[in-house]
């Protein structure tokens, strides 16, 4: 039987606010346990939540960016369950009336086509603390620094049909929230993570199969592997006569498999009800319009503009608009050079990106700024140096040896364009390789490359390659 996979993702994006969603405590990561939890985060008696305005602004920006309906009135509810890292015994989360409703985004598929993925809703909620199960002699430690950190939970429609589509969608949203400046996107620190709902059904069946929910996937690779494993598990199970049960599963990255965490019958009854400590959140047009004016150019629009304005291919435009920083760097380079958008694209996507990756640096602290890169590209353009030599110059710039012109001078890398000088080198090469010359003249044309190589080698790469080609062609004829 042919099987079809149905996937929906619930993405948790930690909003990049300075303070928590309902308290003034800091949200910074990696400090000593329980040093960033105030009385409100600890759920002390008599404390009350007050909503952080910035969190609302960020949620509205996200909603506008996915073309969603922004709820003029949304409600915070309590999700009640007992757990030691949940101080109040309930999580404050939007339930029936979320702030963002019905939006969508498009993802690019491998075959080059694009697909619209529906976003059911996005709602605001607080994160819980962390339970630490090591180093406490059989007991558990509780760290409440994360308790009360603002999250935007983004729930997709069950529109995704493969692990690859799920990853493409997750990457798309990751790019979007980082563009919007509402999430730092740091997946290792848990700032962007997801739960995947996965089911399979016979192809063509309109009914959904029973789904399993895989919790807490915090890398694109894990999302892909966990879903792939889960699809295979479910198909194997059904084909061998079993049935999929609705349950929550955990992905074990070491073993590359998902494991049952709790079944439906063990599922909590969360007893949701509107939080009486918080009034309904009412937004006026002025607030929404103010958020709208803060929206940056979004990735899809930027990509489109790059294709039109710079004549780039869809692929190049996608790569260059992957982040606002990279796109900004590219545009600054083109502006500094005063044109040559394709040359700039090749260098920004090529050596520049490779060096950033190699050193694990951000664009902001790159040793080669866009003006310096443009300075180098100008020397390629005016044929002072060849593309090959430029790579050496770039490496020296990266190492902090100054700008391109200084390095070209210091290392005497200026290209040889003087015809007589090049002819002199060619003469020397011909004189030094009489056998090859004879063979060439006897019809062995492919030795031409050998002569080009020898000339470049003897000129230390500085001879203008185009001139070398032309002059060699003449001279070898005899």
């Amino acid at each position: 039987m042919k099987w079809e996979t149905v996937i929906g993702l619930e993405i948790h994006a930690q909003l990049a606010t300075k303070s928590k969603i309902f308290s003034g405590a800091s949200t910074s990561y990696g400090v000593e346990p329980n040093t960033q939890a105030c009385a409100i985060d600890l759920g002390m008696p008599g404390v009350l939540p007050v909503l952080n305005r910035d969190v609302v602004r960020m949620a509205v920006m996200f909603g506008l960016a996915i073309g969603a309906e922004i709820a003029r009135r949304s409600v915070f509810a309590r999700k009640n369950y007992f757990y030691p890292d949940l101080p109040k015994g309930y999580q404050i989360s939007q339930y029936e009336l979320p702030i963002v409703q019905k939006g969508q985004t498009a993802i690019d598929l491998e075959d080059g086509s694009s697909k619209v993925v529906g976003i059911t809703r996005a709602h605001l909620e607080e994160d819980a603390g962390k339970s630490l199960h090591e180093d406490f002699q059989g007991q558990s430690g509780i760290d409440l620094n994360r308790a009360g950190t603002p999250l935007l939970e983004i729930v997709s429609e069950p529109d995704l049909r493969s692990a690859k589509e799920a990853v493409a969608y997750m990457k798309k949203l990751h790019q979007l929230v980082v563009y919007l400046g509402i999430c730092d996107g740091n997946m290792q620190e848990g700032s962007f993570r997801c739960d995947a709902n996965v089911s399979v059904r016979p192809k063509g069946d309109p009914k959904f199969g029973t789904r399993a929910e895989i919790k807490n996937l915090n890398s694109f690779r894990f999302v892909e592997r966990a879903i792939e494993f889960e699809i295979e598990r479910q198909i194997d199970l059904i084909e061998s006569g079993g049935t999929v049960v609705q349950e929550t599963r955990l992905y074990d990255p070491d073993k590359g498999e998902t494991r049952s965490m709790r079944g439906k019958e063990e599922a909590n009854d969360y007893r949701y009800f509107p939080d009486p400590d918080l009034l309904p959140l009412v937004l006026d047009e002025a607030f929404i319009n103010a958020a709208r004016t803060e929206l940056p150019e979004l990735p899809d629009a930027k990509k489109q503009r790059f294709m039109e304005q710079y004549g780039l291919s869809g692929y190049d435009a996608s790569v260059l608009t992957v982040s606002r920083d990279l796109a900004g760097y590219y545009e600054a380079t083109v502006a500094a050079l005063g044109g040559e958008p394709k040359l700039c694209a090749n260098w920004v996507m090529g050596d520049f990106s490779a060096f950033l990756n190699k050193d694990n640096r951000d664009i902001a602290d790159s040793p080669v700024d866009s003006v310096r890169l443009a300075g180098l590209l100008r020397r390629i353009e005016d044929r002072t140096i060849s593309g090959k030599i430029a790579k050496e110059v770039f490496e020296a710039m990266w190492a902090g040896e100054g700008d391109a012109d200084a390095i070209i001078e210091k290392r005497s890398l200026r290209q040889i364009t003087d015809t007589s000088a090049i002819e002199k080198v060619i003469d020397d090469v011909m004189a030094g390789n009489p056998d090859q010359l004879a063979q060439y003249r006897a019809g062995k044309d492919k030795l031409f490359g050998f002569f080009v190589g020898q000339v470049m080698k003897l000129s230390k790469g500085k001879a203008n390659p185009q001139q070398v080609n032309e002059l060699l062609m003449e001279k070898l004829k005899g």
Partner: protein
Amino acid sequence: MHDKTIAQISAGLAAGEFSSEELTRALLERVEQFNPQLNAFITITAGSALAQARAADRRRQQGEAVPLTGIPIAHKDIFCTDGIRTSCGSRMLDRFIAPYNATVVEKLNAAGTVMLGKTNMDEFAMGSSNETSFYGPVRNPWDLDAVPGGSSGGSAAAVAARLTPGATGTDTGGSIRQPAALCGITGLKPTYGRVSRWGMIAYASSLDQGGPMARTAEDCALLLGAMAGFDPRDSTCVDRAVPDYVAALNQPLAGLKIGLPKEYFGEGLDRQVAQAVEAAIAEYRKLGAEPVEISLPNSQLAIPAYYVVAPAECSSNLARFDGVRYGHRCENPKDLLDLYTRSRGEGFGAEVTRRILVGTFALSAGYYDAYYLKAQQIRRLISDDFRRAFEQVDVIMGPTSPTAAFNLGEKADDPITMYLSDIYTIAVNLAGLPGLSLPVGFAGQRPVGLQLIGNYFAEDRLLNVAHRYQQVTDWHERVPAGF
């Protein structure tokens, strides 16, 4: 000295007749003497009280005193007090030292009041007789066999017995007004949102409201003026100017339209209570007011709606008491479930447990619509009843409680009968309106309270209406025998 009202003390301190320290010492001696009988205080803070009194006297010498500077008061043990045990009447918080002050405490401290101690209360404010307290019942100074009412029973008894001229209370379904009535004092539950709930341990968040308890309306006006006001730490607190409640006290009542809900004078109302209330209404007629009969047709739905909403919210509000971070923790828990069940089982009393269970049930999947949602719809109907009534009348009057104080133990095993003692007060909380109880007579030797209900933020009007009555009557001046 101990028999003076807050207004009289304020004048006496201003005139230099006595110091706050002298007064505080005298009252602490009375607390020492009478608390063993009454059990009105859970914690007596003599040391810090004297320090506060001396500070108030210095402030007065420096010419920086305000009307409440140096006035001794007591706080219901539901208000968090920095560095001082805040038990909420529960074993769960028997050893809980709050690390911050409630806004109400902070504001009264800033005004220069002196805290004598923390008063007894029904556990987590759940009760109408003060019998659910972990610290034992409070006795009614008018009759030691009688309950003082609840849940602010300790505050009411302490004020009635002249152990303190004023106290704070909280009112979720009548917890200020009903004990005020049963102890023969004046108590005001403000409009929901008038007084900050920050630092006030939550029972039912959408109904809880703190307010003043004292002998007279004038004293309540003085206390409320300091307690009320916007607090950015409470999202449900209303940003609205606080009027001068004292200045409004003397407005004449001529032409005042008083609504008498026929539903409040029917079956279940004690005959002597009815007589005292009717006599008070006759007095108001003499003052120029015009009583008219009105109807609040959904009154009978208030108790069932309340006993869904309040337990539902309490089941969630009290989830934080889990033995993990503070509060009672069982000995040697063998695992997490054991830690939860034994810590909570040991920490909470029977009434609290009952309400948590009821509330948990009401919010459960499949029951939510039938109970919680329905109860919220009833709240709207009840609010609409009041809205229509206030289109015709200025204030609503009726008995605060259907009977005078009942005997200790009389209703303790019968929750439904107990719940009915709040039958006239609960609707006011469901609608979020202000309500006041003042003493208007006796049923035998036990006091009777008259309830005044006002429109939203009409505390000034309620205090005015109560004050004018107290200018021409002396029920509020009666002293229980032996005190």
